[in-house]
C-alpha cells in the first residue's frame, strides 16, 4: 500500500468485488468441493454418495497402478526438467555471447513458447509417424524400431522429447534475461580475474544465475506435472490404454471418463498437497537470494 493512499472506501470495495466473486465461485468452492468429495464414494450411476472417510486415500496408496503412474510421473518430470533446463541454459549462454544475429536467434529460439501443448503433441505425432516420420526414420537408422503408441518406452520417449521441445523456449527467455541483467562491471571484473571462459562461467555467471535457475526449476516441475496434459493426451490420441500417463492425466481419466469422482477427488487433493509443498519449497529456497548468502 502506498503511504498516501486514497481514503475512499466504497470505490476499492467495488473494484475488488469482481475478482473476489470469481475466485469464490471458481476457486474456493471447487477446492473445498474436491476436499469434501474425496471422503465420499460416488455411486457410478449418480444415485448419491456414501461417506467413506479416508478409504479413497488408502485405496490410492494400495493401488499398484497408481504407484506405477506416480513412478512414471517422477521420472518423466525429472527428465523433462533436466533436459529443458540444460538445453535452454546452453542456448542462452551462446545467444548472450554472439553479437551478430543475436536478435534473429532470439526469435528463432522463443517462438515455440506460443505453441499449445496439444498442438505440440500433434506435431509429435507427425515426427514419429510410423511410416515416414523423420524421427522414426532416424531411430530406425540406428536400429531402433520406434513404435509410438505401441511400445511403452517409445511412447514415453516421445512424450519427453515433445515436452522438452515445448519447454526450452520459456527457459531460454528467462535464462537470457537473467544473463543480460548481470551487470557489465561484474563481467569485466571477472574478465580481469579469470583467463578461462569456462572458469568465468562456473565461478561467476552460474552462481549469479542461480536465482533464475531455482525459479525455473519450480516452473518446470509444475509444467511437467500439469501443463503436459495436452501433449500426453494428443500423443496417445485420447486412448490411454497401456500407455504411460501422468498423475494429472489419471485424475482426468478416472473422474471424467471413469466416473470415479471420489477417487479422482482424492487424487486431486494429493496433487494440491504436492503443489503446496512445491510452493512452500519455492518460497523458502528461492526467495532467499542464494548467491549473496
Amino acid at each position, binding site marked *: 500500500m502506498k503511504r498516501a493512499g486514497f481514503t475512499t472506501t466504497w470505490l476499492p470495495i467495488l*473494484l475488488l468485488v469482481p475478482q473476489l466473486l470469481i475466485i469464490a465461485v471458481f476457486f474456493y468452492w471447487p477446492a473445498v468441493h474436491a476436499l469434501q468429495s474425496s471422503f465420499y464414494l460416488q455411486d457410478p450411476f449418480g444415485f448419491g454418495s456414501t461417506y467413506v472417510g479416508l478409504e479413497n486415500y488408502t485405496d490410492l496408496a494400495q493401488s499398484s497402478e497408481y504407484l506405477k503412474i506416480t513412478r512414471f510421473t517422477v521420472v518423466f518430470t525429472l527428465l523433462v526438467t533436466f533436459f529443458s533446463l540444460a538445453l535452454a541454459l546452453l542456448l542462452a549462454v551462446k545467444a548472450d555471447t554472439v553479437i551478430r544475429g543475436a536478435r534473429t536467434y532470439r526469435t*528463432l529460439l522463443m517462438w515455440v513458447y506460443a505453441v499449445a501443448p496439444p498442438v505440440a503433441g500433434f506435431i509429435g505425432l*507427425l515426427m514419429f509417424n510410423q511410416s515416414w516420420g523423420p524421427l522414426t526414420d532416424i531411430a530406425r537408422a540406428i536400429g531402433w524400431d520406434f513404435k509410438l503408441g505401441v511400445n511403452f518406452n517409445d511412447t514415453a520417449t516421445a512424450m519427453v522429447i515433445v515436452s522438452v*521441445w515445448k519447454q526450452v523456449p520459456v527457459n531460454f527467455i528467462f535464462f537470457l534475461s537473467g544473463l543480460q541483467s548481470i551487470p557489465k562491471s561484474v563481467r569485466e571484473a571477472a574478465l580481469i580475474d579469470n583467463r578461462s571462459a569456462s572458469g568465468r562461467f562456473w565461478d561467476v555467471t552460474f552462481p549469479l544465475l542461480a536465482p533464475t535457475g531455482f525459479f525455473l526449476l519450480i516452473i518446470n516441475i509444475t509444467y511437467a506435472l500439469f501443463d503436459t496434459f495436452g501433449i500426453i493426451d494428443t500423443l496417445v490420441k*485420447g486412448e490411454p490404454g497401456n500407455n504411460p500417463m501422468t498423475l494429472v492425466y489419471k485424475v482426468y481419466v478416472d473422474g471424467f471418463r471413469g466416473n470415479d469422482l471420489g477417487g479422482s477427488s482424492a487424487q486431486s487433493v494429493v496433487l494440491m498437497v504436492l503443489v503446496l509443498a512445491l510452493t512452500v519449497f519455492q518460497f523458502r529456497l528461492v526467495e532467499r537470494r542464494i548467491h549473496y548468502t
Partner: protein
Amino acid sequence: MTNLSNTTIAAPTRRIRWSRLLDHAVLIAGSLFLLIPLLIVLQTTTTTDVETMKNGPQLVIGSQFDDNLKDAMVKASGFSGENTGMSMLINSMILGLGFALGKIIIGMMAAYALVYFRLRFATLAFWLIFTTLLLPLEVRILPSYEIAQKLGLLNTYTGLIVPLIASATATFFFRQFFRSVPEELVEAARIDGAGPVKFFIDILAPLSQTMIAAMFIIMFVYGWNQYLWPTMITTDEDMYTLVRGIKQITQDLEGTNIPEYGRANMLALIAILPPVAVVIFFQSWFVKGLTESDK
C-alpha cells in the same frame, strides 16, 4: 631511428575464431531443433494427402496450399458438421481475447484497490486473492466442472472464459508494477486535485501501457492455448476452439482410407500462427512482461 623500422609490427592475423563458430553452430542447431517440426507441418499443407502418405514430408513446396486451406476452413469434421476451421478460429479468438481482456480488467481493478487505497480488510483480500496462485486449475478441474454444470455454463462462452480467470496472475503482476510506480506521483496528483478515478485514468493507466500490452500478449497466448478446460466444458462441436479440436484433427489421421494430412496440418498451422505471430511481433513487450512477472 633505424631501430624503429626493425621492430616487427604484428600483421593483423585473420585468426578464425573457432569458439565463435562453435557458438553459432550450437545456436543454429538449437534453432533447427525448434524450427524443423514447423517446417514439416508447413510442407505437408502444400501437398496432396496421397503424396504425403506415400512419401512423407519432402523438400519441395507443393501446389495444394489453397485447396488445403479451403478444406480446413470450410469443411467440417465430427458428427454435427458444425466445427469448421472457421468456426473454431472464431471461438479461439473469442477465448483468447475474452480471457486476456477479462483478466487484465479484473486484475488491474483489484490491484489498484489493493495498492492505492487504505482499506481495513486489505490484508485479508490480499491473502484470499493470492492463495489462488498456489493451485492450478488442473488440480481442481472436476469440481470446477461440476460447478460450471450446476450454474448452467456448459457450452457457453462465459463457462469457457470466466473459470479460467479465477487465478490472480494478472492481479499479482499489476500489484507488483503499481508498487514500483514512484510514491510521489500519487501524492503530486492528490495535491493537483486528482481523485482516485482521475488519477487512474489520467496517470496510472497511461503509465501502465507497456505493462498492459505485455500482459495482453501473455494472456492471449495462454487463453488461446487452453486445452483441458475447453475439452471438458464444451461438448457442442460449434463451441470447439482450434486447440480443443486438435484431438479430432488427430483422429482425422486415423481415417481408414487416406488420412487427411493436408487439412489436419493446415488446422494445426492455423492454431499455431496467431499466438506465435503475436509473440514474435511484440517480442520485446512479451519478454519484458514474462520475465518481470517473477519479481
